[in-house]
């Protein structure tokens, strides 16, 4: 079956090339049937990619180790859920995922626009086909996921245990949905530029795709942060690591894009800026995909660590050069239709927000690529760490929060200073109250920046609540509805606006969590024996007893050995709860460690235990010291090296029990982070807001309302026109 999979890829490459050629020829010669043929080729491509994915997935689920990829990334003892998701843990598999998502999304958008955008769609098809072709070329030429092994091993290497976490498994598809999703507006923007059709048509057709892509990308980023917090042993959620930054940068540009397209739709301004933003978003998405694979930022000499790094760079360079040339050649058609009347207008605030977002992206870009930049400029490679990133991004985040508060209150074109004062009066008052409360009741004054963020969060939330309130009140004066109905109809009629406000609210709640947890956390690393205790963040934590179990991995990742601890935490009021951090040990295939030793010398992962809370989290991790077991393990290797599996299991059980009886001091890390849960809650609210904004209005009801309104408007306008 691997041959079928490979054939799907090669056929896909040819199909993509045909799609591009047919669309271009059909567009230039005006022959519609050729354009239709090109579009159908994209549908075929989607079918081929689905077929190829099905072949690969079935190989994973069957644990068919004749496939090199399955042998490398899965094993018979990998739980089924992780078998199904192991495909995108590998480089080749993730290229296939990209191609699959791109072809399916392209098919969807082309189907939806098959009757409209007659001029633009063929060029957009060609662009999408070329991008898909690039990924297919990578697979066909260099990284074929269907490579087979001449002598398949009896057992695979197994999925890296660190990746055996539900969040980590949905994280890549989410990110890729985001990256691929932004390819759609990019393709249509290029089509619009080529056909000099630079109005808002291409934006209207692809706006929902951009919004959905943005939501998925943001969710993917948050899942990565959640994974870092709950799976890795350091207890943080963001380290300004290059792979993290690689996904954040396109998201920032995408956020700017979502805002500024509204300005083009409403006022015909910022056309050049919009095109620049979507090209930038797409390039950053490609860069993000590339960065994670290339290894160029981990070490100076690792450029050759990936076999496809150079190809990616060439492709990205071509996209940048080609798009820039296109934009420059079409500049006359990208003139603004209106000018900025006043700084106190929504347009101006959107522009400001864009500048801050792009500035933020620039800072992150600079810091991420600094090793390469510094080497180019000074000859020595240097890098900057989290403190630098935090120092530069914090002020920008504060400004962004402020803009999120004032922006919604400002109207399009112009708001008078008096109008602004009136609109901001209550929110400012509420913020002042919050500030007083903070000063009086908490010690947040110790961290002025965090306190400032808390005030801004209160400000933005007050503005959002006021917007909902006033909007519903305005509806009530017309329709006389009761409050709940007025509110729901308000949101239903103005989904974009109120969904957006909700997203703002969610984002500042996220900022609240970040500010609280980073400024006020209390971290303690200790090395203690059973019975001893330590304090952290107002909790007194006692090491009650060690634990050692076989095959009882709580997280369901299939670990044979789990060593851990039971901790009891007591808070200031005397309430207690238990925490059970542990460490999973996975066997290695490396024979040199000994038949018994290999169970202790393979990969090991921290299984942290967190007590979640709205006010604070108590996070604990343990690192059991197994050096004391070295002696018994060596003995066991010698005596039972050739014994049967059952005997070895009993021996391992005995050794593990020995740990439990005579545990040496273990190393613990305990972190008490205030408000950290609000990060996840805030992200959820953002997604809810995005859903509301993207939700298609129920056609029938809206058509009725619209047709009534439209009829009235139509009558008015015709009366005015005649």
């Amino acid at each position, binding site marked *: *079956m*691997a*041959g*079928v999979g490979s*054939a*799907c890829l*090669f*056929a896909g490459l*040819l*199909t993509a090339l*045909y799609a591009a050629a047919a669309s271009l020829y059909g567009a230039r010669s005006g022959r*519609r*049937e*050729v*354009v*239709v*043929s090109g579009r*159908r*080729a994209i*549908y*075929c491509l989607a079918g*081929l990619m689905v077929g190829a994915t099905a072949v690969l997935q079935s190989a994973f689920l069957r644990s068919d180790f004749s496939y090199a990829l399955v042998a490398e990334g899965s094993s018979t003892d990998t739980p089924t859920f992780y078998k199904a998701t192991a495909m995108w843990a590998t480089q080749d598999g993730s290229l296939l995922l990209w191609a699959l998502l791109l072809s399916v999304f392209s098919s969807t958008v082309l189907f939806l626009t*098959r*009757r*409209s*955008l*007659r001029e633009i769609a063929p060029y957009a098809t060609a662009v999408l086909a070329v991008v898909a072709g690039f990924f297919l070329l990578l697979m066909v030429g260099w990284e074929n996921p269907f490579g087979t092994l001449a002598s398949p091993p009896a057992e695979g290497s197994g999925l890296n245990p660190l990746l055996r976490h539900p969040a980590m498994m949905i994280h890549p598809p989410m990110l890729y949905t985001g990256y691929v999703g932004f390819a759609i507006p990019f393709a249509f923007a290029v089509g619009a530029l080529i056909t000099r059709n630079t109005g*808002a*048509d291409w934006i*209207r*057709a692809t706006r929902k795709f951009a919004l959905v892509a943005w939501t998925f990308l943001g969710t993917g980023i948050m899942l990565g942060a959640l994974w870092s917090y709950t799976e890795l042993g350091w207890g943080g959620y963001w380290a300004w690591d290059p792979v993290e930054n690689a996904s954040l940068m396109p998201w920032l540009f995408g956020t700017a894009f979502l805002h500024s397209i509204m300005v083009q739709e*409403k006022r015909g301004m910022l056309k050049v800026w919009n095109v620049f933003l979507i090209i930038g978003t797409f390039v950053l998405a490609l860069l993000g995909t590339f960065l994670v694979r290339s290894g160029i930022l981990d070490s100076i000499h690792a450029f050759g660590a990936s076999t496809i790094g150079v190809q990616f760079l060439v492709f990205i360079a071509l996209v940048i050069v080609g798009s820039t040339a296109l934009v420059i050649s079409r500049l006359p058609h990208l003139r603004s239709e209106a000018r900025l009347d006043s700084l106190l207008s929504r347009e101006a605030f959107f522009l400001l927000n864009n500048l801050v977002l792009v500035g933020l992206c620039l800072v992150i870009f600079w810091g991420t690529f600094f090793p390469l930049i510094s080497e180019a400029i000074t000859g020595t490679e240097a890098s900057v760490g989290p403190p630098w990133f935090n120092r530069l991004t914090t002020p920008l985040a504060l400004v962004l929060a402020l803009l999120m508060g004032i922006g919604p*209150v*400002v*109207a*399009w*074109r*112009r*708001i*008078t200073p008096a*109008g602004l004062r*009136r*609109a901001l009066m209550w929110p400012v008052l509420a913020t002042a109250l919050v500030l007083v409360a903070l000063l009086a009741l908490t010690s947040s004054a110790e961290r002025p920046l965090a306190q400032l963020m808390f005030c801004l969060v209160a400000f933005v939330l007050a503005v959002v609540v006021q*917007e909902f309130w*006033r*909007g519903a009140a*305005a509806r009530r*004066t*017309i329709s006389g509805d009761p409050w709940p109905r007025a509110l729901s109809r308000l949101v239903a*009629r*103005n989904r974009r*606006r109120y969904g957006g406000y909700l997203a703002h609210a969610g984002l500042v709640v996220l900022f609240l969590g970040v500010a609280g947890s980073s400024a006020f956390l209390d971290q303690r690393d200790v090395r203690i024996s059973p019975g001893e205790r330590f304090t952290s963040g107002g909790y007194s934590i006692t090491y009650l007893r060690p634990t050692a179990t076989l095959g009882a991995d709580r997280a369901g990742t299939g670990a044979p050995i789990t060593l851990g601890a039971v901790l009891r935490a007591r808070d200031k009021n005397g309430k207690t709860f238990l925490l059970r951090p542990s460490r999973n040990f996975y066997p290695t295939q490396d024979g040199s460690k000994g038949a018994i030793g290999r169970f202790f010398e393979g990969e090991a992962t921290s299984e942290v235990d967190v007590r979640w809370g709205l006010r604070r989290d108590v996070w604990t991790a343990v690192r059991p010291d197994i050096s004391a077991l070295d002696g018994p393990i060596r003995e066991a290797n010698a005596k039972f090296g050739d014994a049967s599996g059952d005997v070895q299991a009993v021996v391992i059980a005995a050794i593990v029990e020995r740990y439990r009886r005579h545990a040496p001091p273990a190393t613990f890390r305990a972190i008490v982070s205030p408000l950290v849960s609000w990060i996840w809650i805030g992200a959820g609210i953002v997604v809810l807001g995005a859903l509301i904004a993207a939700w298609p209005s129920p056609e029938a009801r809206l058509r009725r309302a*619209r047709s009534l*309104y*439209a009829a009235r*408007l139509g009558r008015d*306008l*015709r009366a*005015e*026109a005649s």
Partner: protein
Amino acid sequence: MEYAAALIVLLCLVAFVVVWPLLRGEGSPAPDEGAREELEAAKEAKYREIRDAELDLQMGKLSSTDHRAIDRELRGEAIEILQRLDELERVTPGR
């Protein structure tokens, strides 16, 4: 040779799907259908803008003088779109 066989089969399938419209000749939907959809979308967007401006006025964000000016401008643009839609109807009567 599983690969070669599969490749030939797949390419034949794709060719079939893709060549079909070429054989059938002229593309199916009327060329102006696309223009109508675009104009309808632009019309809806313009109506939404008019409504947004009304909401802004009711919520006190826009002064009534500003709203009058904006409303007049938007309605003028809406009229243009309606006129273009009418022209389209006239050129391709019925459906």
